C-alpha cells in the first residue's frame, strides 16, 4: 500500500452519541452515532511508520496517553465506548462505514455504560505476613534440631497452603465487590517488576458502577478494615472511561 508524506488518516478514539459535544477533537457523525476522531499524518501513523514507532517507548507512551486523555475528557460528560489504541482509517468514509456496520454493537455498549463509571481496585498482600499468620508456632519443649526441622516443615506447608488460600481470598474479595457493581472484570495481577512494590498484587479488578454511587468504595473500606491484620491492603483508582466493559469480541468477527 502506498503512502505519501502529506496523506492523512483518521485515528478513532471511541464512539459517542451524535449529540455529544467534544473539544479538541473532531466528531464524524452518522445517524445517531459519532466517532471521536483526530486526523493524523500517515508519515507518522501509516502502517510501516507505525511498525517502527511502536518500538519507540517514549512515542508509544505519549500516544497511548493521548488516547487515554481524550477518552477521559469525553467520559467526564458523555457515555463513550472506548476503542483500543491504534484504530486508524484511511478515509473519512471508512469511519462512517464503521458506524454503519457496527452500529448495533456500539448502541448496546453505550447503553451498558451510560451514567456509569469504571473503578479499578487493586488488592495487595504482604505474603510473608500472610504466611506467618497461617504457620503454627514452634513448640518450645522440642530439641533445637527437631524444632528447626518442624519449623521448616511448617513453613513449607504454610507456603503451599498460603498459595491456595490466596487464590480463594482473591476470588472471595472479587465476588463481594462484584455484588456492589453492575459489571465486574478480574484482570491478571500486574507483576512485581511492573508495580515496583514489595507486596504481591492479589487482585487487579475493574468494576462498573453508577456514577456517584459510593457503595463500592464503602465496600472496599469495610474489607480493608476486616483484612488489614492479614497483611491485605486495597487501592482504588479512577473513575476511568469504561475500557473494561465494552468488549464485544465474544462470538463476533
Amino acid at each position, binding site marked *: 500500500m502506498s503512502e505519501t508524506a502529506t496523506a492523512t*488518516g483518521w485515528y478513532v478514539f471511541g464512539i459517542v452519541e451524535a449529540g455529544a459535544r467534544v473539544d479538541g477533537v473532531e466528531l464524524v457523525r452518522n445517524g445517531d452515532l459519532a466517532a471521536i476522531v483526530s486526523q493524523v499524518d500517515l508519515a507518522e501513523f501509516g502502517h510501516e511508520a507505525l511498525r517502527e514507532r511502536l518500538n519507540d517507548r517514549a512515542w508509544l507512551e505519549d500516544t497511548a496517553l493521548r488516547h487515554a486523555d481524550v477518552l477521559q475528557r469525553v467520559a467526564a460528560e458523555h457515555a463513550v465506548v472506548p476503542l483500543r489504541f491504534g484504530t486508524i482509517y484511511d478515509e473519512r468514509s471508512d469511519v462512517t462505514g464503521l458506524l454503519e456496520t457496527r452500529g448495533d454493537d*456500539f448502541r448496546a455498549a453505550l447503553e451498558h455504560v451510560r451514567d456509569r463509571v469504571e473503578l479499578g481496585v487493586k488488592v495487595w498482600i504482604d505474603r510473608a505476613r500472610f504466611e506467618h499468620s497461617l504457620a503454627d508456632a514452634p513448640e518450645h519443649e522440642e530439641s533445637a534440631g527437631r524444632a528447626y526441622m518442624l519449623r521448616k516443615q511448617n513453613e513449607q506447608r504454610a507456603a503451599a497452603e498460603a498459595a491456595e488460600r*490466596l487464590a480463594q481470598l482473591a476470588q472471595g474479595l472479587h465476588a463481594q465487590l462484584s455484588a456492589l457493581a453492575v459489571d465486574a472484570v478480574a484482570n491478571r495481577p500486574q507483576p512485581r517488576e*511492573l508495580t515496583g512494590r514489595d507486596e504481591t498484587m492479589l487482585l487487579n479488578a475493574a468494576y462498573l458502577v453508577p456514577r456517584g454511587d459510593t457503595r463500592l468504595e464503602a465496600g472496599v473500606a469495610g474489607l480493608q478494615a476486616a483484612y488489614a491484620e492479614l497483611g491485605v491492603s486495597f487501592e482504588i483508582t479512577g473513575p476511568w472511561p469504561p475500557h473494561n466493559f465494552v468488549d464485544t469480541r465474544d462470538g463476533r468477527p
Partner: protein
Amino acid sequence: MSSALQHRGGPAPAQLADVLERVLDKGIVIAGDIQINLLDIELLTVKLRLLVASADKAREMGIDWWEGDAFLSRRSGDRALEDRLRRLEQKAGLKPSDEDGR
C-alpha cells in the same frame, strides 16, 4: 480517589501501567476493512518492550501477564493463552516467536 490520568508532568509508573493496560489491551477491537490496524501480536510485543527495560527481563516475566486467568489457576490460564496464541498465529500467518512479523 486519585485522578485516573495526570497527563502533563507524566503519571507515576504504576499509574502509567494502569493506563496502558486499559488503552493497549481493552476497549473495542475493530477488525475488518481497515487499512491500518495493529495486529494483536504486535501489541503483545509492544507491551513487553514498553513495560520492561530489557528483553531478558521480559522473558523472565513471561509474555502472558495480561492474559489468562486472573486468579493464578495455572491450567485455565495456560489454556487461554494457548488459544489466544493459536488465534494470533492464524490471523497473522506468523509463528509467535517471529517478532519482526516478516
